[in-house]
């Protein structure tokens, strides 16, 4: 490590602390964010000067530089680099969604999406890029790549080759770069090197998308080597913006390569090499569904699945837990050798609605490989049900009450086949402390107790059954759930504080004869505040105040509030905004 690396890190961290703490906005950032929300909600925006846009852009560039230092020295997984990338993505997204004029000068959406990807927030990248309509085919291609839309990349590059069939010959690239060679009506004055670069970039991105999709590592390596070389070439010959986009795309491509679903699935196939073909087909299918690149939370979950049997996975809603559950099903039901009896998994869900949803998902992805059946309620099963005696691996999705009832009737049949128990929303095992809980304890209707009771009985009968608990982050349930599910005091949950989208919780403040404002209080589960200030971030809703209400309405707090919310919502709903009251 060069001796000045520590100082470089300190320089980068100074900026990170000033501009990129997750729940802390600088005052200019808060203004940029408020302006973005106001523009999105189509209410008049705060005063904003062009120099403020340039200032934000300069901050975003500085953060990218800091992220670069962190990654150079600490490696691609640097948590501090992730902070910087996330805030860069946010700043640029705020400018983009505020329809800032910088959009026409600098490819801010591409930079924002790349920053989100590198910050481990791929859904934010695609969310932003989905809104971008561009007439420029190159921009469209890079946008498709940056949202991991590999089908889109292949489609756009195929269109490019259709327009330039002469560039598909095996010697086309070389002839393009060779002086004097005639090709595609290029003449001496055309900058062949620039055109050559573009053609090669389309080739690389198309090939990367295709080889990721097919899990073809050898071709992927070649395409990546080319992209690296193009990036290095761009750093020497292109403007900073173009070379920055290239460099970030290259890093995003590295991330795709590391997060491809093929890697863990092929590792899983080592358990049963005969099934490798099935797993590869599953991986390809996931790519077709746009889910071939795993999120950090999924990678961690699958990593744990490869190493261990029972564990708790603790990540927020929308972090892709289902995939880990699916892979656990594949591992325990399809890859393990079984002694004659078709293996069974019980997938416990907290509600009937969720049972239906899980059933549909599982059937669509694994329906060809195993019987998927759900017990919802009422008399929807009988002793003659096919799956009870069939010889196919079976997943039974049920609420704890249904599973409990079933176990009482068919205990021995089920436990003999049971290999895997998946508990969705397993934090429910930790009861709330409240009056309702006390009552439910006393009348034996408490869900936590039922769940614990059921699982304990299963474990008593089948101590070797594999247990996987999926839990939400909030409430501190992760550790107790992990210890319980693994049966070890030193157990730890697999978890990242990761969510694929941004969640903001705020308070609408209203007053008679005045326009309302929204206090933005919580961002991604943490209190949001402005650096160095007591005042929270608030969003003025510059809309017409609600007309004076009759006395009977305005003197009732409840009625006034209800109508104020409705009034505000009616103003926000005008342009395709979805409002849920």
């Amino acid at each position: 490590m060069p001796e000045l690396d520590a100082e470089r890190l300190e320089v980068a961290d100074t900026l990170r602390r000033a501009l990129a703490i997750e729940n802390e906005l600088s005052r200019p950032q808060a203004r940029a964010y408020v302006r973005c929300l106001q523009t999105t909600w189509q209410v008049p925006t705060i005063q904003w000067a062009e120099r403020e846009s340039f200032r934000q852009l300069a901050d975003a560039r500085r953060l990218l530089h800091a992220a670069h230092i962190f990654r150079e020295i600490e490696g691609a997984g640097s948590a501090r680099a992730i902070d910087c990338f996330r805030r860069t993505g946010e700043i640029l997204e705020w400018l983009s969604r505020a329809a800032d004029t910088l959009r026409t000068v600098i490819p801010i959406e591409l930079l924002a999406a790349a920053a989100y990807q590198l910050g481990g927030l791929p859904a934010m990248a695609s969310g932003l890029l989905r809104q971008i309509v561009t007439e420029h085919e190159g921009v469209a291609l890079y946008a498709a790549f940056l949202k991991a839309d590999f089908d889109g990349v292949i489609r756009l590059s195929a269109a490019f080759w259709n327009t330039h069939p002469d560039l598909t010959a095996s010697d086309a690239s070389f002839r393009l770069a060779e002086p004097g060679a005639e090709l595609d009506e290029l003449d001496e004055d055309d900058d062949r090197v620039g055109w050559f670069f573009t053609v090669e970039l389309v080739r690389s991105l198309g090939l990367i998308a295709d080889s990721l999709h097919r899990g073809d590592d050898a071709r992927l390596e070649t395409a990546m080597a080319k992209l690296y070389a193009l990036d290095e070439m761009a750093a020497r010959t292109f403007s900073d913006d173009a070379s920055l986009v290239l460099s970030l795309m290259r890093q995003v491509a590295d991330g795709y390569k590391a997060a491809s679903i093929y890697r863990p699935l092929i590792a899983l196939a080592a358990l049963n090499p005969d099934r490798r073909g099935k797993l590869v087909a599953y991986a390809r299918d996931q790519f077709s569904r746009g889910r071939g690149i795993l999120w950090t939370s999924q990678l961690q979950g699958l990593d744990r699945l490869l190493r261990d049997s029972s564990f708790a996975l603790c990540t927020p809603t929308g972090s892709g837990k289902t995939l880990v559950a699916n892979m656990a099903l594949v591992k325990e039901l399809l890859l393990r050798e079984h002694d004659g009896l078709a293996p069974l998994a019980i997938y416990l869900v907290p509600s009937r609605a969720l049972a239906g949803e899980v059933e549909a998902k599982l059937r669509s992805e694994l329906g060809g490989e195993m019987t998927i059946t759900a017990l919802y309620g009422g008399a929807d099963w009988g002793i003659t049900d096919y799956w009870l005696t069939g010889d196919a691996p079976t997943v039974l999705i049920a609420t704890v009450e249904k599973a409990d009832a079933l176990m009482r009737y068919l205990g021995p049949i089920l436990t003999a086949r049971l290999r895997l128990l998946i508990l969705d929303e397993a934090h429910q095992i930790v009861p709330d402390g409240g009056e309702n809980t006390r009552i439910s304890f006393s009348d034996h209707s408490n869900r936590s107790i039922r769940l614990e009771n059921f699982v304990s009985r299963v474990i008593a009968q089948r101590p070797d059954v594999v247990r996987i608990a999926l839990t939400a982050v909030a409430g501190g349930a992760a550790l107790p759930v992990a210890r319980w599910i693994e049966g070890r005091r030193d157990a730890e949950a697999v978890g990242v504080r990761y969510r694929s989208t941004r969640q903001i919780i705020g308070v609408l403040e209203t007053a008679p004869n005045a326009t309302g404002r929204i206090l933005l209080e919580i961002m991604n589960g943490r209190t949001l505040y402005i650096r160095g200030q007591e005042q929270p971030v608030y969003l003025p809703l510059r809309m017409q105040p609600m007309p004076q209400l009759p006395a009977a309405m305005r003197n009732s707090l409840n009625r006034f509030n209800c109508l104020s919310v409705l009034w505000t919502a009616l103003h926000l709903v005008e342009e395709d905004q979805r409002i849920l009251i």
Partner: protein
Amino acid sequence: MHTCEPPLEIIEEWLASNGTIRGTYGHLLLEQQAATDEDLIAAMRPYFESAHLDAREYFHRQIAIDLHPDADAPGAHACYPGCLPSTARRGLFGEVMAGMMTEAFQGKFVGGHEWRIPIFLFREHADVEAYLWDLARDPARTRQIFGRFGSDFVGLSLNDAGEVVRFIAGEAKWRQRLTKSAVESLMLGPWEEDEETGDRARSGRGVWFEINRDTPTPHGLRQLQRLLELRDPEGYQAAILSIDQAIILDNAPPLPRTNLILIAGNGARDRKALDVLIGWEEALEEYTAPHDLQVVELILTDGEALIDGLYSTLWQEAE
């Protein structure tokens, strides 16, 4: 890395120099006094090869990777920068000259700083970037999409500890014939006609505009740093750190900057000796940036012979 010293002796024979420095403004007039011949080309070639070496290596590295599914061994022999069209080569020549003149005449530059160019950036592809965003080569569609291209040229002044204490950045332009109107177009932008009044006026988007609006720390410095990280991270670690500080820190003292404008080309037919294109007494009012300014006018008589002679013979011996 670029390590070759400028060929001082031959430059002295080749060019007559007249420099003035008034406060923060330096003006250097360089007039060709000896015709281009084999000796001049041979003396300059090592410097040009050294300047182009880095870009050449990377160009060749990427060209050697063939993505065609039926590709076997790399078959082509496109050699950078020889494969560039002549217009691009002229641009590159201007950039190398900016470096060579900065290193050779540093004593006559404003401030008298010691300059070095560790690696040359050859960012001569402004219009070509349209290809990248549009995936098309159709001239009708070629227009600037995203456009802030930054300075053409960046050099550094390092102290004994290897830290960057000042940098020089600016524009290096080649024009075949340096007439008054060509230089005005270059500096003030091309003529534009007002659609309503029909009045013609300079667009204002020329070298002065670019140099005035450049960010305090030019983007080129970040690119230069990246190349230093790739090529010699140990040797330049102090410089790398000082560029980090200049780019990132809010309260760091800004890195002092010298702006450079180099205009190279053949003199106008009616030009007389010692005629200047940009006033030498004081910086023009068009210049509004707060930094030191160095203007270099490189007036040649047979510039094309030199450019073509050089670029057709780079690395010939090795190949």
